């Protein structure tokens, strides 16, 4: 009976080691990831709905979530626009320094966020490299929400570019040639044929950058100024609650953010299902 059940769950294989590796995988995954996250969510049961609601609608929490979400949204939008151009240029054109530019796109993946944070602050602070020229014009960047957007733009760019590049590479030249033989100008071909085929990848990259931006901490805290209600991001508020030993407050904010991440994740999957069903590709 058991043998049959196993047989239907897993195809038999002559390769040994399934029990060992699968067992280790499940134990490790459970201990490091699943149980701690489950316990975090479980912790909210120590709060009544009214308490939970009070934390969630607390003006400071709402302001922090709004800043995190809004800044991440703007940064992801900026990255989408420039990400198309960067990815297009890197795939389609040959120019000196292309490979260097291509390699450096991954910098935000490799550079520790704290390093990025202090470097961006050094650039945009009042007496910084750029800040010293913008502040006299009345444009404050560091310690404002603009600074948050800039940090999140830095963090998010590779998500858009790396999602788009393989898709642009796969566009068949013949498709563009077909549009040309049908009388479409280059502009029409780009806007009616090329860009629409990139929409699923573009949406995926956008959501990835957005999700990362909402949760980002290290690169933002240096440049944000961290003023409650104004330049305080949601992850920072969690840290502040923890330093106040307000575990419940921290947990409540964290679960709201987890819920947002979950919605994002769902969105990416829906985009891909939709794209596959409609176009037959992702």
């Amino acid at each position, binding site marked *: 009976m058991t043998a049959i059940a196993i047989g239907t*769950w*897993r*195809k038999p*294989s*002559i*390769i040994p*080691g*399934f029990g*060992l*590796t699968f067992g280790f*995988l499940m134990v*490790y*995954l459970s201990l*490091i*990831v699943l149980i*701690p*996250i489950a*316990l*975090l969510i479980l*912790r909210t049961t120590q709060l009544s709905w009214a308490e939970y609601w009070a934390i969630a609608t607390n003006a400071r929490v709402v302001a922090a979530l709004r800043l995190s979400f809004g800044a991440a949204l703007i940064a992801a939008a900026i990255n989408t626009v*420039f990400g198309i*151009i960067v990815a*297009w*240029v890197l795939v389609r*054109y040959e*120019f000196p320094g292309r490979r260097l530019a*291509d*390699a*450096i*796109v991954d910098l935000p*993946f*490799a*550079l*520790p*966020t*704290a*390093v990025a944070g*202090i*470097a961006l602050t*050094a*650039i945009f602070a009042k007496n910084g*490299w750029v800040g010293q020229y913008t502040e006299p014009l009345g444009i404050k960047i560091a310690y404002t929400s603009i600074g948050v957007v800039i940090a999140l733009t*830095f963090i998010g760019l590779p998500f858009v570019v790396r999602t788009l590049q393989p898709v642009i590479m796969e566009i068949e030249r013949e498709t*563009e*040639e077909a549009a040309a*033989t049908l009388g479409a100008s*280059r502009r029409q071909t780009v806007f009616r044929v090329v860009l629409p085929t990139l929409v699923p990848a573009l949406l995926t990259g956008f959501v990835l950058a957005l*999700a990362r931006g909402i*949760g980002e*901490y*290290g690169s933002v805290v240096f440049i944000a100024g961290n003023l409650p209600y104004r330049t305080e991001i949601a*992850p*920072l508020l*969690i*840290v502040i609650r923890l330093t106040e030993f307000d*575990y419940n407050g921290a*947990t409540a904010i*964290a679960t709201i*953010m*987890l819920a947002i991440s979950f919605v994002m994740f769902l969105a990416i999957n829906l985009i891909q299902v939709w794209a596959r069903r409609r176009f037959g590709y992702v």
Partner: protein
Amino acid sequence: MSEQTLAPPATMPPVTWRAPTAEVPPVRIVLIGVAVLFIGVFLGFPLLVVFFEAFLNGVGKYFETFADSDTQAAIRLTLLVAALAVPANLIFGISAAWAIAKYDFRGKALLITLIDLPFSVSPVIAGLIYVIMFGAQGYFGDWLKANNIQIIFAIPGIVLATIFVTFPFVARELIPLMEEQGTQDEEAAISLGASGWQTFRRVTLPNVKWGLMYGVLLCNARAMGEFGAVAVVSGHIRGLTNTMPLHIEILYNDYQWVAAFTVASLLALLALITLIVKTLLEWRFSDELANGPR
């Protein structure tokens, strides 16, 4: 194409001719300009600033920073954390890839999603979950205190948080690679009498070694550079629970500007080396792909 060499073109193509799949040169130049400028301003510039600020007071001052015992302690702790977290995730990544790629079972997609989960969780939350478990008011807080075990605000917590945020790197590099390579090689080896371990060492591992290296590289870069998750669990105790990124924050908040950038430059150097090795590996891969079935 032997008998007759081609005569030189009698007339050059009309100057106005361009491939129907290419943009006009002005558009191309503008696009390249925008892309290079964007990458330069947002990515290249901050990187240069780090090194510039680090050497602001000269090479002598630069190396003075490393004489500081707290800085040395931070570097040692970072190396220690990476030395624990990376092998742990390496072993996990290999067994996860083996279990997922070499067998067919239901629920595989869900399992892969769960392995990727740490990527979509804010690093601060990654720290928080261990505080909730092991902190003073956490689930196991009282028991740990009674047994005099410290996890939060101590090295075990830092290692745990680092393992969490670097959890998927090796696995997600290996799983697609090993799935692509299928199971025929392993089945052949087993049928020739090799043990499971021999099969892995002599057949599977040589096939995935570059992908493995790639994953370890990214895992290590993140492990040494993680800030948010570690900040939550470390307690910022100088000389004891400060990793390099945390030490940068402390120096920065102490207005030790150059020192902060000096430590930062070390991490930036690590990032650069990571990028260079990654790029070299990718070139190598693309060579292999070019010689492949296509």
